[in-house]
């Protein structure tokens, strides 16, 4: 609306004209949609995040029902075999990748990501000393587009892991490091539930990078990390 005599817009019109309402960037929308779908799926089926007691209790009931169903099936003598086949169908590294994706998602909940928050590798690296029996190389890769955010102690498949957290634009990269388990071999990169997982080993340490960034970003991350981290340290 304009004033007919002056041709000047009224204040509201002028404000709306001058100050646009923005669209959320496509990358942000895509990320949020992925998170929301995951959240909704888990809320309906398996509330892993269980932010409140009600859903946590529901989870217990669900688990009990599954347990009961499995017991009955086992009594019949065939479901157990089926389950074993399913379990065997997944290789050990597949299971590790799945476990790491779950750990990665859990780490993104508020307050879970880091125990020691610092972009200074001289703060993060000593923090691991005394907490875990390896001394993972910690570098700030900010100059290569992967700023160091901090570190965390985590547990994956029953053993402790150093988790070093890096940023990549809007994404987080969890780099899990542990002493190589006998028989553990480097596996190719994989994508699980939309999360990229990249595994490599150096010396006696095993590295697993997990992120919602594109797999190519993780390749670049590994290259940047290996570039800086020579020689790998362990004690």
């Amino acid at each position: 609306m304009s004033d007919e005599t002056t041709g000047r817009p009224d204040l509201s019109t002028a404000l709306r004209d001058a100050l646009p309402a923005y669209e959320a960037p496509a990358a942000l929308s895509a990320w949020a949609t992925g998170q929301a779908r995951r959240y909704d799926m888990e809320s309906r089926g398996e509330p892993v995040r269980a932010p409140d007691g009600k859903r946590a209790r529901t989870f217990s009931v669900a688990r009990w029902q599954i347990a009961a169903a499995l017991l009955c099936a086992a009594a019949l003598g065939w479901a157990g075999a089926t389950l074993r086949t399913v379990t065997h169908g997944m290789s050990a590294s597949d299971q590790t990748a799945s476990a790491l994706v779950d750990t990665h998602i859990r780490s993104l909940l508020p307050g879970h990501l880091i125990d020691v928050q610092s972009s200074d590798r001289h703060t993060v690296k000593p923090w691991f000393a005394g907490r875990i029996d390896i001394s993972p190389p910690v570098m700030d890769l900010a100059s290569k587009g992967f700023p160091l955010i901090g570190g965390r102690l985590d547990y994956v498949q029953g053993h402790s892991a150093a988790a070093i957290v890096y940023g990549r634009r809007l994404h987080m990269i969890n780099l899990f490091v542990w002493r190589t388990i006998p028989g553990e071999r480097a596996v190719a990169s994989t994508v699980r539930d939309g999360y990229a997982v990249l595994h490599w080993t150096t010396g006696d340490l095993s590295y697993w990078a997990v992120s919602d960034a594109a797999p190519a970003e993780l390749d670049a991350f590994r290259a940047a990390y290996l570039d800086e981290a020579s020689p790998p340290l362990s004690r």
Partner: protein
Amino acid sequence: MMRRSASVEPPIATDATTLAPGHAGERGFERVVLPHLSAGFTLARYLTGNAQDAEDAVQDAVVRAMRYFHTLRGDDARPWFLTIVRRVCLTTYSVDYHARESSISVDEPSLQLIDSDETPDMALQRSLVRDRVREAVDQLPPLLREAIVLREIQGCAYGEIAMITDSPIGTVMSRLSRARERLGALLHGVVDMGDVA
């Protein structure tokens, strides 16, 4: 792993015994909250003053919103989500509500707003008015600017602004009135203030 067994189960989250009646979770986070992502981004954009911080803030806000989604009653998640966005902006992105130096940098809304029958003179005039309005909004104290952005750009009701900014409704109305008064003074001769100023 439990997730693999879960697909055979009924959608227990919609069970009346697990969620309070009217819980927004019945419709899901994606349908209830995500339609307001752009509104959240717009608010963050004006509060933080840049697109990168705004993206980060909205990302944080989405994660927090998931965590507190079970507390949301009713279906209108917009003021609820904007409240979370605003808090993230204030706590994480150090929006300094007393002395912010940086100015709003507004992306040029480009030509789509210009009528096709507009003469070059009128287009120039509009562009000049826009610049003056942005400068003026930029000079508002942050609390007044926030109120005016929520009211005029986001189209929020007074009650919604009160909820989002965690202020009494009287305070909101007073801020809006002071914001308009200041804008009227700064934009004297540029916009028509009618009887409002």
